[in-house]
């Protein structure tokens, strides 16, 4: 109803945009909830740190950031006025200037670079836009926005069109940092989706090889599968590197780990013994995930992956506990999907078991 009314009556959207002077109000129907809330919390956390000095702010090279008293006073006033729901555009110009000054003092010349690179196309609504709206946008509009391009690539990939998807994925070296959180998430998700797609494509051959007696055909098949392992591992590395470089390690891990587990199982199946991902490496990644989750103990995907990997003979209890947490926090479907993928890879689906047993 909400969407129907908004789309049926553009003037209504315009009127609603005017309510409280909040230009985003009418557009919120098409923004991603998680992006909107996440971005606002991030900004508020930063502003609170500016006000209180706790945690102390530092640049990536470790240099402490000093915020002037004028800027801090302006941020203090901002933190009060920003919690109001009315007169959003009637802020004191001095507060606006102070907030900009804070950004410049905090980010240094990079703030200028950021504005110079992204302006005039900088548009907050784009950052918050739900990737689902990509379907309704023109090619040019999608191409213009990295997060939307990646969302389109993922949609095409889901439909099995790898070539089509690739045409929407830009080369990493052409991207202009800094990337928004939506763009970073898009990159990570897209690389993981490509890996899953590649591994999905290996299933028929793997099934065939299981029935092939030792010989040349088996060796050739193994070689072909080994050729899939290496690019998949590179993408896993890339995901982890992006996560580390952009401080979204947890998100990177929850996307990299399911791929890594599938790759390890493929490696073991084809007895591909060269250096690369193995169970010990996955264990280290899971340990890393657990460390990250100490700061984010409700992360549903994190629990799902812990449940997935901790299905070990001596860690059954922990796996069970992680599984409960995953379901409690809404990632039951994610866990099921990850399991189904692996079971399909190994032809271990319950139905398949049943059929095999019956056939036997």
């Amino acid at each position, binding site marked *: 109803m909400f969407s129907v009314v908004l789309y049926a009556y553009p003037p209504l959207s315009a009127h609603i945009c005017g309510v409280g002077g909040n230009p985003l*109000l009418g557009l919120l129907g098409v923004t991603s909830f998680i992006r*909107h809330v996440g971005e606002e919390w991030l900004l508020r956390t930063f502003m609170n740190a500016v006000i209180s000095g706790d945690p102390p702010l530092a640049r990536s090279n470790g240099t402490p950031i000093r915020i002037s008293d004028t800027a801090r006073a302006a941020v203090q006033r901002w933190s009060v006025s920003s919690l109001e*729901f009315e007169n959003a555009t009637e802020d004191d110009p001095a507060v606006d200037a102070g907030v900009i000054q804070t950004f410049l003092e905090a980010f240094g010349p990079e703030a200028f670079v950021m504005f110079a690179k992204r302006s005039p196309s900088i548009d907050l609504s784009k950052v918050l836009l739900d990737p689902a709206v990509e379907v309704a946008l023109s090619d040019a509009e999608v191409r213009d926005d990295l997060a939307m391009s990646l969302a389109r690539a993922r949609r095409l990939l889901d439909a099995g069109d790898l070539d089509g998807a690739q045409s929407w994925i830009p080369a990493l070296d052409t991207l202009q940092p800094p990337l928004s959180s939506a763009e970073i998430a898009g990159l990570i998700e897209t690389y993981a989706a490509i890996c899953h797609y590649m591994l999905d494509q290996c299933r028929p051959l793997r099934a065939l090889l299981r029935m092939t007696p030792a010989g040349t055909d088996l060796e050739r098949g193994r070689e072909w599968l080994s050729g899939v392992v290496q690019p998949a591992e590179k993408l896993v590395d890339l995901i982890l590197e992006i996560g580390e470089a952009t401080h979204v390690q947890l998100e990177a891990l929850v996307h990299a780990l399911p791929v890594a587990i599938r790759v390890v199982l493929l490696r073991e199946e084809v007895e591909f013994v060269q250096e690369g991902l193995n*169970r010990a490496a996955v264990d280290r990644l899971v340990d890393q995930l657990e460390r990250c989750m100490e700061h984010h103990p409700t992360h549903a995907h994190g629990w799902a992956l812990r449940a997935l990997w901790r299905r070990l003979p001596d860690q059954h209890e922990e796996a069970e506990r992680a599984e409960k947490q995953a379901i409690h926090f809404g990632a039951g479907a994610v866990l099921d999907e990850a399991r189904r993928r692996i079971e399909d890879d190994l032809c271990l689906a319950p139905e398949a078991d049943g059929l095999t047993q019956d056939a036997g």
Partner: protein
Amino acid sequence: MYGTMQDSSLPRRWNWLRLPISLAESRSGNPLRCQADGALTQNVVAVLGRDGKHGHMAAVGSTLLPLSQQVIAWIMRGLGYDELAPREVSRGVSRSTLKNAQRGDMILRAWPDLIDGVLELLGRDPAEGRVILQQALKHWDEMISRLPPASGLSLAERLHAPLVRAIPEVGIRLGALVASLALATEPSSSQPSSTQAAIKPWLWLVEPLDSRFFGKVVDRLLERRFPGMSNEERKEFVERDTRDGDQAVAWRTIERWHSGEIEVPNTKGFAALGKVLGEGAEPILRLARLAAQLRKSLCDWIGEDAAAQWLRQVATVGQIAAQFLVAATGMAKAARLAARCPRWPSRGRRVRKPSSPTPRCGERAVEVRTVGALGEGCGVLRAR
């Protein structure tokens, strides 16, 4: 191939995750048994100990915004249900489970019962709506649990973004409700009235969090049940006319509701008052109570000034939406569009037919439904 440690308690399809003995890689390359590996054991214990509890009694972290079970439990209690009694399909939810749900404790076993109970309360067949509702709620939970940790933020700071989003979402729905009622109760014989005049009698509905809202709802229900009577005459009925012989509610209480003196009405006597006020009145009373509870909670969460501002914004959007929607052509257009768009829950929606008394001469029955942000209520309002 996947290791040599076997555990017969694991299902066969978990073979792929069996740990090879060489998990804890030793320098010598000799495999170690996990059970004997002190470091690993300590690590596992440490992992469990981090959350303070072992075994099945799992510790649960709390999310920064409420999980769906917390929202549902809060709504149920706001509606005045301290527990959900077993019905046709649902097995019921006890008072303590509902409390646990609101606290955010793990209620994995009771969760399906909670969903079924809610569906039955809304007059829906759990078999039809269960899957869709569960998926939607789990999607919400998953979204909430992934939100970045922001423990340093106050509740008001955390709630600001979701509340800003809620302004158009709630406002437009309230506006649509007002427009529907205005169009449905417009006298058919007379000339079409102006937009403003048509919506005026219902505009109070865009301010459901007004302190006198509950009193206004009761007023309307009294008008519907006892049309043309004075308050003195109504008082007599309200204080006497009960089927169980108990007084439904003292007239003084109704006056206090009307004045906004009572923040959240007590549910005691709701059932009796519902009987006095006629079929469909009780759910409407409960919804109005929920609005009162939300108002009180909102003031606690974000402060009275911010809550008042938010309410004004919602009301403004509601008024604008009502004005736009009340134009007959516009309404028809929206209805056509709505008919083409998939609705949630769309197909197979079973609507309980209101078995209200036949409308009196000169009145038209209007079925009132609110779906979405307000939950669902069903009742029959009459207009002359």
